[in-house]
């Protein structure tokens, strides 16, 4: 049905476009004919704009009718079909859902076993009501499109401002797209916020912590509140060990990636020959394309045992899953973010800056340290912030290499866990979001979001404060 609908839509749009454009073209030809050079006949808008406007006027009402009509049709058809079933089936939401699934299975021939006559009747009602409703939607859509088509043909005239109207529509479409993106962000934030508030304040929830317990507690053990009959067990939703774990791993990652990334960017941008740069930069960027799950088992199977081996030779006892292994590999992961972006901003510093410094007798390294890096600083800070955000949000590497133990420690040789890993651990395998354990994931998500937001704000302030603008 929707195939027919959109096929008709396409045909009508094309018809509207070509009909209206050729009509406008005919008017334009008259105006351009020899001896007819008369302003009264020349078109305000080019024929193509008349055509585009007509096609849009056909498209929009048909789309709206479909978007609004289809759900209504489905809802009404399902209501009619369910009315034919016994009341006890319809009253409960779960059995209603199961009945609907049965009906759709009968219609698509996937129903297992022999359906009762009552079910078959209901299925038949569902089918006919849906089909009936779809035809009505189709009729309304085509009627509106036809009306738009005739309206457009009738409106082709020399002073009709088709271009302005079309551009206004384009602007509205762009605005709508931007709005969808912004609203999605706001929607996500509010849904996470809502679940977070439930986690802290829903009285029906067993074992929920207070906000203070969560933010300042030093023990994290969500498994304690797994089952409803364990309600009296002291739960542990202290978020501090996760925070220190996250910060520790991020810090190690930045200590690895910061110097390596920035210095390689300086080399690539200022010292490397063009031919070396031409292949070295893509190779570095490939590093960013390695799936983190691959880096994760590289960390767990190669780096962690290596570190453990080294530790043993120095007489150090290193956990086989350590923050150091995860941090090192995560550092490798974010090197390309820092090096590639920094390389771009260093290259964006105008050549005139370098010339100015060289002409004063500055050496290459003086020029880089004192002129180029300060000028590129805002971009470099953004590169670091992006890399830190990536590191904080990274999950797979930590799951594999740093373990799940929520130790409150700053020792990089211990196993630690991070906020993202706990979110993943809590939610894997669970379908119902009504225990304190699962809702804790939303609280963690909210805190994580809040932290990255703060980071971005700090970055913005740094960039504003130390921006050295060149022009």
């Amino acid at each position, binding site marked *: 049905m929707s195939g027919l609908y959109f096929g008709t839509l396409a045909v009508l749009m094309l018809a509207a476009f070509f009909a209206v454009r050729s009509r406008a073209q005919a008017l334009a030809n008259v105006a351009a004919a020899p001896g007819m050079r008369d302003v009264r006949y020349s078109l305000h808008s080019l024929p193509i704009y008349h055509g585009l406007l007509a096609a849009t006027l056909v498209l929009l009402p048909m789309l709206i009718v479909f978007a609004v009509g289809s759900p209504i049709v489905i809802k009404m058809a399902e209501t009619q079909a369910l009315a034919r079933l016994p009341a006890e089936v319809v009253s409960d939401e779960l059995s209603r859902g199961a009945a609907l699934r049965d009906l759709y299975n009968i219609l698509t021939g996937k129903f297992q076993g022999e359906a009762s006559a009552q079910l078959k009747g209901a299925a038949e009602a569902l089918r006919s009501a849906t089909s009936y409703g779809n035809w009505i939607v189709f009729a309304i859509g085509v009627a509106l499109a036809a009306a738009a088509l005739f309206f457009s043909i009738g409106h082709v005239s020399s002073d009709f401002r088709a271009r302005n109207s079309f551009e206004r529509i384009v602007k509205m479409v762009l605005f709508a797209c931007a709005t969808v993106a912004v609203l999605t962000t706001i929607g996500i934030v509010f849904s996470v916020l809502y679940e977070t508030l439930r986690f802290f304040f829903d009285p029906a929830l067993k074992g929920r912590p207070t906000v203070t317990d969560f933010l300042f507690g030093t023990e994290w053990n969500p498994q304690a509140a797994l089952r409803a009959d364990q309600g009296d067990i002291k739960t542990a939703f202290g978020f501090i060990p996760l925070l220190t774990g996250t910060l520790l791993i991020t810090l190690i990652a930045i200590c690895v990636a910061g110097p390596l990334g920035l210095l390689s960017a300086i080399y690539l941008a200022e010292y490397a020959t063009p031919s070396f740069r031409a292949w070295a930069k893509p190779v570095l960027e490939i590093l960013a394309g390695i799936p983190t799950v691959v880096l994760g088992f590289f960390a767990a199977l190669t780096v962690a045992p290596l570190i453990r081996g080294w530790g043993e030779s120095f007489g150090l006892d290193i956990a086989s899953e350590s923050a150091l292994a995860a941090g090192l590999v995560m550092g490798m992961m974010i090197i390309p973010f820092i090096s590639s972006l920094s390389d771009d901003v260093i290259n964006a510093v105008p050549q005139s800056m370098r*010339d100015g410094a060289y002409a004063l007798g*500055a050496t290459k390294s003086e020029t880089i340290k004192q002129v180029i890096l300060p000028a590129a600083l805002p971009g470099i800070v953004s590169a670091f912030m992006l890399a830190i955000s990536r590191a904080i949000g990274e999950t797979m590497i930590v799951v594999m290499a740093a373990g799940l133990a929520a130790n409150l420690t700053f020792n990089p040789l211990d196993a630690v866990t991070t906020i993202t890993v706990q979110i993943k651990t809590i939610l894997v395998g669970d379908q119902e979001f009504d225990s304190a354990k699962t809702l804790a994931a939303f609280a963690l998500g909210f805190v994580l979001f809040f932290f990255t937001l703060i980071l971005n704000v700090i970055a913005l302030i740094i960039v504003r404060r130390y921006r050295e603008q060149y022009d």
Partner: protein
Amino acid sequence: MDAIVANPSSATAAAHVMPGSGFKVSARDCNVYYGEKHALKSVSVDIPDRSVMAFIGPSGCGKSTFLRCINRMNDTIPICRVTGKITIDGQDVYDQSLDVVQLRARVGMVFQKPNPFPKSIYDNVAYGPRIHGFAQSRAELDQIVMTSLEKAGLLKEVKDRLTDSGTSLSGGQQQRLCIARAIAVSPEVILMDEPCSALDPIATARIEELIDELRSNYSIIIVTHSMQQAARVSQRTAFFHLGTLVEEGETGHIFTNPNDKRTQDYITGRIG
């Protein structure tokens, strides 16, 4: 001014003078190649001390290329190759033993587009003295910065906002800041590559006045597309065409009675 009176006024005559005899900068048989392209062909010229020499000619004639040979800015272009001899006070600029950092401290440069560093006005001027270690104390550095800004005619306009960014100034002020930055290193020669082409007429007039004042202390070489500007600020003028130095001599002579037909055609607007 004495140097001009004392010296012969055509390129051919100047070629007889040995390098280092009374001239600040001398070039002999200077060639520049950009890869395969022969951009500057056998240029020989002498530039007197404490005066302004203008290089004129159509775009791509090699005048900026030659200018950039004098402080070896062409070194930064990998495919560029320079042959011949350029001396400053008799010392070969392309001598292996010469340190390019010291050369550039002696030869300042001002570019076509004002290019102040994205630093404060003070730091812009202090940059050169700092990297060369000219000042032992903050007071000494302050002194250099103030004197340089004063000489560049900018001090009165910026003395209350030395901590503002150099890029916050107007185009003409930025160019004078770049001149102050060059002066702060106490160069002997100042190269100016079309210093007024990005400026409005009023800012241009300020820069030209400034060049005229600076003439008493420095040897100045200015590349310009404006023949009026060359006539206004320079004592000597050299005309470049298609990579060769066509004619060089006293400015008044070049503009009123050139020896070469090509110079005549250029200054009357028939070529270029």
